[in-house]
Structures are given as C-alpha cells and as structure tokens.
C-alpha cells in the first residue's frame, strides 16, 4: 500500500446550475480500499463516473494510473474494472456468454473460474434476465475484475445482496486488496465501510467534510463512549446516581446507558457502586462510537 494510483485534485462537476462536486481532492494507493461515503446526491457517483471516463469533469485534474480519464477514456479500459450502481446486460445474454464477450474485448481468454468463485457455475447457461439481483451483481463484479485491472471501482456493490453473498463479496474484495489492487468503494452501508475500508472520505453537497481512517473519523466526533449496564436488582435504574466522566444517561429496555468522555473510571465507578449496593452484574458493554453514528452526526450537522 504505497504509491498513489488515483489522484483527484480540485475536481469539479456541474450539471446546468447544479454543482454536484465542488473542488474535492484525494488520493488512493495500490492495495488500499478507499471508501466514498455520503448521502444521496452528495456527489459520489459523479466522482466515480468521471474517474471511470463515463462523464467529463468540469474542472480540476484526475489521474488513474497516470491516465487522464476525461481525455484518454479508451486507454483507461484495460486499467480499470467497474461495477456500476445501475447497469444491465442484454436480458438474453447467458452468464458464460457474458464472460466470453467482455474478456474478448479485453483481449484475454474467458475466466470462467471467477464465475465459480462467485457461485455462478450453475448459472453458466442461464440468461441475464433470469438471474436474481444478487446473481446479477455478482456477475457484474466478476466481469469487472476478469481482466485483472490494477484499479476497481465498486458503486454500492452489496446493495440488495443477502448475507451469504455479501460475505463472499467482501472476501473477494479482501483478496483483490491483498493482490495489490486499489479499490474505490462507494457505499451507504456504514458497517461495510467500517469493516472493509482503509480510508474513507465523507462527501456532503459535493464537498469532502471528513476524511481519514474509519477510526480517525469516529475519534473526531463527540468522543462519547457508550457504557451499557444491566443488573439483577436494577439499582442503577432506580437510583439516578452520577459517575465520573458521564455526560449523558439514558434508559433503554433493561439497560442503563452512560455516555462517557472517560470510560475507564466510569466503568470502575459503576462496578464499585453495584458491589456496594449488593446488586449483581448481568451484562456490561463498552462501545466506542460507530462510523454510522459519526456519519449521522456529520451529515445532520452539515459537515460541522
């Protein structure tokens, strides 16, 4: 994970009077999974489509493996693999036929083993229109990586997939990353972003409002750690005592949730209090703020 394979500098995209992306900059290195997060209309797909050479940027400099996608889109084709957010294949195209068709355009023999790897071997002779959404997405991914491109763009790759398919897809992404392939992942799924990405950029109204590793992003939030406690006699629930570092206390179902700026002393004080009251601990959980919570915090506060 070293040299930058994608470089975006002061990139702008405008549709009529609407500024979709307003001067963003970031870099992606080989062997890195870079997440682009943001609510609908934040500019993720516009950014991806300009990097993929589908649309032309209205300003700034884009480079993908040294190629300017706006000026040399044909040169880009063998260097990138793309799974679009919305795309399709002819309804009567068979799965095996699709692999042969696109591999021929990349000048390589068909990679049927990828179809097997993604659980599509039984569907080799099925037509695209007969596949489930999950199977269509897996086929799109197989086609995107068949020519072993050094950069892969995945736009909402797991949307509509069942748990098993998501896990398979995540494993494949991990394998691609280990092979040194750089991946840009646009997703709405914060758990996926937190689990899979090395770095992320959060886009809001065409601007990057936060960037860094998932841990860095969550650490820059309110910094409150959630301590959830449940006891046999519910002494914490009955007695609204304060503990060191606690900024907020909430009751939820049988748990008392404390939001603490300093979780160590808070937990110690809670345990001492339970013991002093002669109550018995049933469950105690300490959770740092999730990326999803931080994302909501950022997007609802307009990037503050």
């Amino acid at each position, binding site marked *: 994970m070293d040299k930058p394979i994608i470089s975006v500098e002061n990139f702008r995209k405008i549709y009529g009077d609407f500024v979709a992306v307003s001067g963003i900059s970031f870099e992606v290195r080989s062997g890195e999974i870079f997440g682009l997060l943001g609510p609908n209309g934040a500019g993720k797909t516009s950014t991806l489509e300009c990097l993929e050479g589908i649309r032309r940027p209205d300003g700034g400099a884009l480079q993908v493996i040294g190629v300017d996608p706006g000026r040399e889109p044909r040169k880009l084709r063998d260097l990138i693999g793309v799974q679009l957010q919305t795309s399709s294949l*002819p309804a*009567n195209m068979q799965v095996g036929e699709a692999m042969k068709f*696109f591999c021929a355009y990349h000048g390589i023999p068909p990679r049927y083993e990828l179809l097997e790897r993604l659980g599509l071997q039984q569907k080799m002779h099925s037509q695209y229109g007969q596949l489930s959404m999950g199977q269509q997405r897996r086929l799109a991914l197989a086609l995107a990586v068949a020519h072993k491109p050094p950069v892969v763009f995945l736009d909402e790759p797991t949307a509509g997939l069942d748990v098993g398919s998501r896990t398979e897809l995540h494993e494949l992404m991990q394998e691609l990353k280990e092979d040194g392939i750089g991946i840009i992942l646009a997703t709405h799924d914060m758990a996926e972003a937190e689990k899979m990405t090395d770095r992320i950029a959060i886009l809001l109204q065409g601007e990057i409002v936060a960037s860094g590793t998932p841990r860095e992003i969550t650490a820059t939030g309110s910094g409150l750690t959630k301590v959830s406690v449940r006891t046999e006699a519910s002494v914490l629930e009955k007695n609204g005592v304060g503990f060191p570092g606690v900024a907020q206390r909430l009751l939820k179902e049988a748990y008392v949730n404390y939001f603490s700026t300093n979780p160590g002393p808070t937990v110690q004080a809670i345990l001492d209090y339970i013991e002093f009251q002669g109550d018995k601990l049933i469950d105690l959980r300490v959770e740092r703020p999730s990326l999803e919570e931080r994302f909501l915090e950022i997007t609802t506060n307009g990037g503050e």
Partner: protein
Amino acid sequence: MSAFVNHFTFEFKTGLRNSTSMLMNYLFPLGFYAMMGLVMTQINPGFKDVLIPAMGLVAIMASTLLGLPGPLVESREAGIFRSFKVNGVPAFSILVIPTLTTVFHALIAVIIIALTAAPLFGGLAPASWANFALLTLLSIFTFGAIGSLIGVVSSASRGTVLWSQLIFLPSMLLGGLMMPFDLLPESVRRFAALLPTTHSMQAYLGLAYGQTTQLNPLFSVGILLASGLLALGLAVYLFNWDSHNSARRGHPLMALLILVPYVVGMLVG
C-alpha cells in the same frame, strides 16, 4: 477480431432468441408474404410481377425499421450501453454490429422469398439476379442505417414506434409495393418520392426486371446510397451512451438531414 466475431455471434443469436426480434425478422414478413402470395395474386394477377421485390422490401423494412430501433433504445435506457462502455466495448461496435446482424436476418428472409415466390405463388423472377442481389444489399444497407438512426435519436420506445411507422406505413401504401407508382396521382407521387421504398422499387423494376420506370433507376440507386451513408454517419455522430448524460453531440433533429437526398431527387427528378 475475436471480440468482433463474439459480438456478432451474440447479436445474431439475439435476433433468434428474442421473441420481438424473431417476429420482426421472420414471422411477420414471411407470414405477410404467404398471405399476400395466396390472396393478393388471386385478386390482382399483376401483383405476381412485383411479388419478389415488394415482399423482399417488406421483410427488409420489418427487420430494420420495426425490429432494429427498439432494442437500441431499450439498451440505452436500461444502462446496457454503460456496462458495455466501462467494459471496453466501442461505440462503433454497439451501433454497427446489431445493424450488420439485422442485415443478415433480412437477407435470409429475402432469400427465402426470392427462392419460393416463383414455385409457390407464380411470382416473376428477376431478369438479372445479380442486379437483384446488389439492389437488395443496397436497400438493406439504407434501411438498416435509417433504423439505427431512429434508434439513436429516439428518447423512448414510444418515439421509436412513431418514427418507424412514419416511414413504414406510407412506404407500404405509396412506395409501389401494393400499387404501381405510375398509378398514383402526381401530387402523391411527389410525396412518395421522399420514401426510400419508392426508390428501391423503382431501382428493382428498372435494373433487375428491365422495365420502364417513372424515376431514373440509377438516380434512385444514387439517392439510396447517399441517404444510407448519411444516415449511418448521423447515427455514429449522434450516438449517445447514456440517456442521462446531458453532454450529447448534436441535436436529434439533425436526423432529418437524411431527407436531403430525397428532396434533391424530388426537385431534380
């Protein structure tokens, strides 16, 4: 070459697998041919003289004007072109290969008609089979290019049907397929000269059947060739990968430029 052959093979199979394409390429034109061969030749024995070129042109128009544009529009609307683009399929292949395969399907239908019309319905064989073959190829090229252009400029399937029928229906009625061009009133004849079918029929009758024609058949050949090349050029120029992409080249109304050779022909002729 391998990519071209793969793509061509797939598109050719689509013409047989897809029920709408199958209908337009074979079932409708051959069914119509059988009905006209059985009924029309009994009502009007003179129809036997034009049975082969007229029904051949119906087959060509069905596959190119009615069959070709719809899948082009649907593929663009469904995002199939976008998938093709990001996977390295060039625009030229997307446009030209379906046109070529449609040409092949139309050619097969015309061959079936040409070989069966005489033994089945007493249809008159051309005096020059070579000229008949060349004119068939020219007609398929011209109508194929016009069909592609309709597919490229139509924003939705409904528009496709409208544009296609705007050429198909007048062609059926006034293009010399059902009634001879010289029997049409002068004013209608002027309008009919704007239709490619009229020029195809005049060229067939003059050059493949050796008959005297109202229009100079060589002039008609020139008009067909010019409009075919113009339509193909415009289709390539106006081609758009993505209906949501506002940055498209040219305005769809530029497609009307294909009328120029016909208008010139009408004024000069």
